[in-house]
């Protein structure tokens, strides 16, 4: 059975991804644009993620040990180099919402010994908690360090009764020893895609949003279906001249803001960031 499968599908089994036009025939490819000029660093997205995805509150001691579980975190930088260029941050701080980049060629995927993390047909980097044995190789290999490991049995302490009533029934509560990370609110996508499928259509643009995108007060996060050329996210990718299948983007002119973080590592992320704009003459 598997042998004939192997022979029949040999060509597709031997294809490297991403390639140009990979999602042309696919119904979905989830992607995001984060406008760093709009992001104000207010933490609405991070709290929304805690609420939606049953992220445990770990407490001061464990946070201090670096065992926090924030799938999306707001990073605040004071500059691009390695020191302050002036005495004060004259042009403000640099905020960066960092979450799983849902890389098309995710470094975390090939190294998992049990295949607990792999790529879904709609372009998500999935994490199968049940399959995870906790080798943490994915995290070691993730250049963005956005994978979070259950160092403890967080559910023991994170939701003292009745806080556990808030837990989202659509999202697993993870036990100790498994890796977890941003899923692009997989449960919302799943429900939406299933609903659309029963109705014989594909999801409309904006019909399903991730919790962070939905909460973001400045709408800095745009989420959508890249396979749908008319979706806002696809138009933004095109407008910003970012090609999913390229590891360096050629821009037709200066001043086009779209870029992907650590793209030079050939990870082909699904999140495009738009450069923060500052009136440097002010």
């Amino acid at each position, binding site marked *: *059975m*598997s*042998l004939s*499968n*192997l022979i029949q*599908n*040999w060509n*597709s*089994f*031997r*294809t*490297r*991804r*991403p390639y140009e036009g990979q999602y042309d025939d696919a119904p979905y490819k989830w992607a995001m644009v984060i406008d760093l000029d709009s992001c104000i660093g207010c933490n609405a997205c991070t709290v929304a993620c805690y609420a939606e995805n049953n992220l445990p509150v770990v407490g001061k001691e464990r946070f201090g040990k670096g065992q926090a579980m924030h799938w999306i975190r707001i990073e605040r930088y004071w500059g691009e180099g390695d020191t302050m260029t002036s005495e004060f941050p004259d042009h403000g701080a640099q905020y960066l919402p960092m979450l799983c980049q849902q*890389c*098309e*060629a*995710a*470094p*975390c*995927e*090939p*190294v*998992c010994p049990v*295949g607990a*993390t*792999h*790529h879904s047909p709609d372009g998500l980097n999935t994490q199968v908690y049940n399959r995870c044995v906790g080798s943490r190789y994915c995290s070691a290999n993730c250049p963005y360090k956005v994978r979070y490991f259950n160092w403890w049995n967080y559910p023991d302490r994170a939701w003292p009764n009745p806080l556990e009533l808030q837990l989202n029934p659509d999202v697993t509560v993870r036990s100790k020893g498994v890796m977890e990370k941003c899923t692009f609110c997989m449960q919302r996508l799943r429900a939406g895609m299933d609903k659309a499928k029963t109705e014989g259509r594909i999801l409309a643009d904006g019909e399903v949003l991730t919790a962070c995108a939905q909460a973001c007060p400045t709408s800095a996060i745009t989420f959508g279906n890249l396979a749908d050329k008319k979706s806002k996210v696809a138009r933004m990718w095109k407008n910003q001249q970012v090609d999913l299948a390229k590891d360096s983007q050629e821009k037709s002119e200066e001043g086009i803001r779209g870029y992907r973080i650590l793209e030079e590592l050939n990870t*082909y992320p699904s999140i495009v960031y738009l450069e923060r704009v500052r009136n440097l003459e002010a």
Partner: protein
Amino acid sequence: MKKSHTLALYADMDEAANALRELKSSGMSGFRMEDVVVKSPIDHPELSELLGPRPVYIQWFTLLGVLLGPTTGLVLIASAQASFIYQVRGGRPVVPLPPDMVLTYELFILSGVLMTVLATFVAMKLPGNRSPLYNASVSEDKIGILVKADPQSIPQINEILGRHKPLEIMGDQAR
């Protein structure tokens, strides 16, 4: 006809070699050189000329192992990858060759080793029972010559063996 056994123990390898030489040149009937077994604490390749050809076939098993192991291994791995719900990982092909080669290489060695070990035990007839004419001193520092022959040839053989200062001659018809 039922064969009888005799075992002579020597302290000195040269004497044992002389005894073997004499046995071989005696040309007597009722016994063949293939039936002569030398038991020693170490390997004595220098005696092989006297004992005649004693071929070793282990390497053929090894060859079989190194051919079959990696082939079946590669096919199994690739089939497993193909049957694993079409999982693309890190943009790599579902059936990627370099990692599979690594595993194939390990399987090549593993099957080679296992077949060699298997063949060795078969060839050495192990596990097996010791012959009744085993003497513990051959695992210490003595050399034993065990001869299997027709019962009527045994006295003559014992005589030849006895000419080369044996420490002891044991057997069905020992002195």
